């Protein structure tokens, strides 16, 4: 149902693929502009609706805690906005560019405020030296403001994310309440912002901030951190990646117009998760994993109906063929291209985009030369790396003899190189100098680098900087997809029963 809105083509229902749902949200162009007197508030509410996972209960409850613990200290310019926000009882479900714009302007304003606040701290540094308590208060104020900015930022960014929660929201009164503006208002940054205690260096608060920071970073990150153990976590994924090569669509020759072309944005393509928990905001690659995760949020998610695979809506079989376009303008896979060749699935889009338009940031830890942008490619390569025993005189190595012979047959003057031990054995031979000269000649004979790279060539290094294996390991640790990435300790939404969180990553 949401798909209709998203694509803006009534009568076409593509909602059968939940993954697609999430992906396509951003493509939607039909919006209902909410009637809102205050953009800031409206946007805030809207954001919390659109991104309930980022206004999750644990965050709010912590804020409540804070509120309880901390004494009210000062007023804040934020207040009127919050009050006026009460007006919007039924925030629209759809994303609104105007709302977004207002969100951004709010952010701008907020940043200015913090800026002036910090400036004043600097200006009055001499005064503060005599009154340390006031300095502390100002600092807390600044921190609170920053927190507010971060929250706003998150919610603004969150509105970019898919909206499966809309469905869930409509079915779930508890959630409704959660996102209720009133409720929100009660909890809202009021406490955070107004009520800062003298002993503001509360460790819990810091934790929260740090978590928020992390969360914000992750949202803003244009390239998701590499996921080194994504493959291990989702063995099926690896399979998918291999099967769905970019070239799949090349073989089918659909006449133009016989299919719908969808184009995802870069951020969506690169987003690590496509399914998010409406309660805690944890992201998942698979809907099934999310459903398993949801069980931890209460008994209502344990019913067979909730756990069942979302069934296809009637009539969904008849939906037209859908193909995808690469957002990179000028690419052959982009719909603007003259000889446009559509991509068959979202997975194709992902792999194509990463392979063709992203940096190859994964470097093989064995050869330190071969680089990949798709982690599964790296894994595949690492399985064979170091086993290349077929070498050409040009230095290129091959894992298979027939590949070497194909290479030698193609290029003039390239000869198969004999294994090193044999060459060493003949080291005393007189002709070795000639041999090396010959090899030098061969090196100069490359027809073109393109030809080379188009083949299964290894050992030829691009000039581009690449990550050292150390870096690569670092990426592994940052991994969000994998088990390690979402440790319960680091999880800002740590209220989930232990064991469940662990499973969610695995399943």
């Amino acid at each position, binding site marked *: 149902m949401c798909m209709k809105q998203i694509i803006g083509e009534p009568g076409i229902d593509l909602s059968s693929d939940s993954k697609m749902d999430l992906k396509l949200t951003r493509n939607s162009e039909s919006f209902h502009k909410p009637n809102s007197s205050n953009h800031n508030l409206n946007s805030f509410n809207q954001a919390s609706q659109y991104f309930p996972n980022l206004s999750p209960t644990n965050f709010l409850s912590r804020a409540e805690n804070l509120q309880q613990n901390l004494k009210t200290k000062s007023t804040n310019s934020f207040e009127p906005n919050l009050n006026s926000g009460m007006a919007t009882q039924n925030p629209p479900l759809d994303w609104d560019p105007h709302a977004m714009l207002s969100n951004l302007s709010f952010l701008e304003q907020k940043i200015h405020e913090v800026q002036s606040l910090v400036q004043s701290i600097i200006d009055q540094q001499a005064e503060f030296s005599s009154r340390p308590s006031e300095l502390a208060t100002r600092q807390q104020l600044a921190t609170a403001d920053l927190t507010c900015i971060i929250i706003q930022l998150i919610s603004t960014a969150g509105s970019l994310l898919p909206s499966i929660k809309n469905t869930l929201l409509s079915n779930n009164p508890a959630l409704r309440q959660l996102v209720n503006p009133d409720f929100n208002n009660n909890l809202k940054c009021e406490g955070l912002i107004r009520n800062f205690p003298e002993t503001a260096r509360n460790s819990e608060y810091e934790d929260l901030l740090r978590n928020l920071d992390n969360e914000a970073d992750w949202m803003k990150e244009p390239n998701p951190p590499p996921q080194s153990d994504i493959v291990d976590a989702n063995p099926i994924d690896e399979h998918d990646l291999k099967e769905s090569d970019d070239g799949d669509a090349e073989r089918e020759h659909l006449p133009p117009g016989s299919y719908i072309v969808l184009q995802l944005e870069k951020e969506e393509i690169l987003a690590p998760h496509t399914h998010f928990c409406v309660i805690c905001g944890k992201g998942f690659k698979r809907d099934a994993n999310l459903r398993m995760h949801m069980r931890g949020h209460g008994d209502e998610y344990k019913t067979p109906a909730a756990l069942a695979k979302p069934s296809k809506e009637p009539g969904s079989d008849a939906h037209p063929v859908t193909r995808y376009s690469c957002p990179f303008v000028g690419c052959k896979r982009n719909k603007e291209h003259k000889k446009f060749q559509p991509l068959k699935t979202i997975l194709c889009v992902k792999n194509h985009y990463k392979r063709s338009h992203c940096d190859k940031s994964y470097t093989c830890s064995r050869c330190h030369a071969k680089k990949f942008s798709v982690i599964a490619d790296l894994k595949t390569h690492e399985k064979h790396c170091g086993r290349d025993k077929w070498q050409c005189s040009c230095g290129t190595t091959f894992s298979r*003899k*027939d590949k070497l*012979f194909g290479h*030698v*047959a193609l290029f003039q*003057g*390239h*000869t*198969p*190189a*004999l*294994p090193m031990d*044999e*060459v060493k*054995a*003949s080291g*005393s*031979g*007189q*002709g070795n100098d*000639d*041999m090396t000269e*010959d090899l030098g000649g061969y090196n100069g004979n490359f027809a073109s680098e393109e030809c080379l790279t188009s083949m299964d060539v290894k050992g030829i290094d691009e000039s581009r900087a690449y990550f050292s294996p150390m870096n690569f390991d670092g990426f592994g640790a940052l991994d969000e997809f994998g088990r390690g990435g979402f440790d319960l300790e680091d999880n800002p939404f740590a209220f989930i029963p232990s064991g469940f969180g662990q499973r969610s990553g695995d399943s």
Partner: protein
Amino acid sequence: MEMETRMKKRIRVEANTEPSESPFEVLSEEILFLILDLLDSNPLDKKSFSLVSRSFFAVEARHRRSLTPLRPELLPFVLSRYNSISHLNLTLCPYLSDASLSSIASLLGPSLRSINLSGSRSYSHRGIESLANKCFNLEEIDVSNGVELTDEAAAAIGRMSKVERVRMGRCKKVTDLGIGCIAVCCPNLKLLCLKGCVGVTDLGVALIAVKCRKLRSLDVSFTMITKKCLPAIAQLPNLEELCMTGCLGINDKALVTLKQGFKSLQALDMSNCQNISQASVSSILQKNPSLHHLNLSYCSPVNSMLSGLHGVFKLNSIKLDGCHVSTDGLKSLANSCISLKELNLSKCSGVTDEGISVIVAKHKDLVKLDATCCRYITDLSLAAITSSCASLVSLSMESCTKVTCEGFRLIGRHCPKLEELNLTDTDLDDEGLTSLSQCQNLTSLKIGICLKITDEGLIQIGRSCPHLQELDLYRSIGITDKGVSEIARGCSNLETICMSYCTSISDESLKCLSNCARLNTLEIRGCSLVSSVGISAIAARCCNLSKLDIKKCYEINDAAMLSFARFSHNLRQINLSYCSVTDVGVSALASISCLQVVTMLHLSGMSADGLAAALLMWGSLMKVKLHVSFKPFISPVLINRVESRGCMFQWLNKPFQVQLESSEVWKQQSHDIFVE
């Protein structure tokens, strides 16, 4: 020949006219070169020539282009004399070190064009590398039987950029990588033999086909190739000869699915490809209508190879040895070929008189027909052959036991051009032989195991066949000295004669045969009447003698060996088992500089010490067969030393058996074996 003798005369004349001051200085080098050009037939002539004078010696050294040295030790000396040698055949030097090859390379340098190392061992890729470095004009190299050669050696060959002909049969350790080096670096390659290179696969062969576009002849026999490399081979624009003997990976599917034929192929050898059938044959012939020679020997002993041929083929020669050939098959072959010249049906099952008649009726130009062991053909076939094929040059009817005297008479009457005739193990008698004497061009006559023939018939042959070069009388026991002496008198060109188990032969025959100066092969196994006297006569006068079998000639003793040592400087191979030869005789043989293959079993007078002494001095020995009882008495150190020179020992354990079987019994036994 005439030219040669005339030249010799002229030299002699000039020598006589100006005896006082060196008369030969008059002759310019060019004239001497011309003379030398005509002295090719007999190696000894050139030796005599070079001994005339110092300048002749020098001229002969400069003139010589090819050399076949007997001993590698002398190579540096020999090559410093003959420093413009372009063809070097080292097959008689079993032991050839890398150092020898290196010295050859530096002595001959760019003048060397062709080198044959196929009989040599103990050299490695380094020797070939030194050749590649120095002899950059090398066009031909034969490293066959270099079973220890590796890819390095092939890579070294690859560095001979001008090389055109490479033979590397049985180089078992060479793989695709080495072949790849040759393929890439030798664009001028015209001939490549990879026979028995089991390490070579489709990849290597396909790369050869891709890179060496000038290839004319390719031999991939007994390799593991499959259909994968055939399309690449088919693309070769100049390939004329393709040999795929014993390629079990080639099957019907490979040949039938091959989209196009081999563009310019003329000769295809698919013998012993046991996985192909008539489908392949018709596919090959249809895709390659210009094919001239096809060899399908031993492909399919059960199914007919020729049924269902359609089209018109230019086939000249087809070999079907050991295949099943039906009458229908022969009919379709006869109908689809324009002009067959050569037909081999040796050991074919299913050949009948009708089949032969159909073939010869259609192909009257038949030159060569081999019907060995076609046991069902009779005089009818011979009548058809002789009436149609007047130009028949070679006919083999070995073991065609149903052919009678009448048939042989037809041969004599209608085949005047016949040069080679094999009637071994038939019912030939004197009458037939007399009739055959009308074939005056006979050069090779094999009438072994013809128990009915006697001197009477042989005398006719001797009188009317002056060109006879090869005569086989194996176990034709009716032959005596009388007949042989007539042959010796009439056939002065005789080169090969086998009289094994002709027990009536005595010294007299050998004395007569010693007139045949060209005699190089003599087999008188089991002729117990022959003594040292006869064989010494041969030794003294037949200086070309190179192969000798005197097994079970009990009367032959050291005296004969001493004459060999003195006269037979070309003796290569000898079997003297059961002879009355002692240590003296064996050590005398050891002094023959080129004697390489020796079989010495059951020599009554030979002791272990004598054998050891002989082995120690026997520098040229390549292969020796000895009784196993000697083995414990020969020091392993000595054996090692001899082996390191390139000699192979073969220790046999044959029982001592003096008694000779009668030839009738022997023939009956051999036929019984066949019937079983």
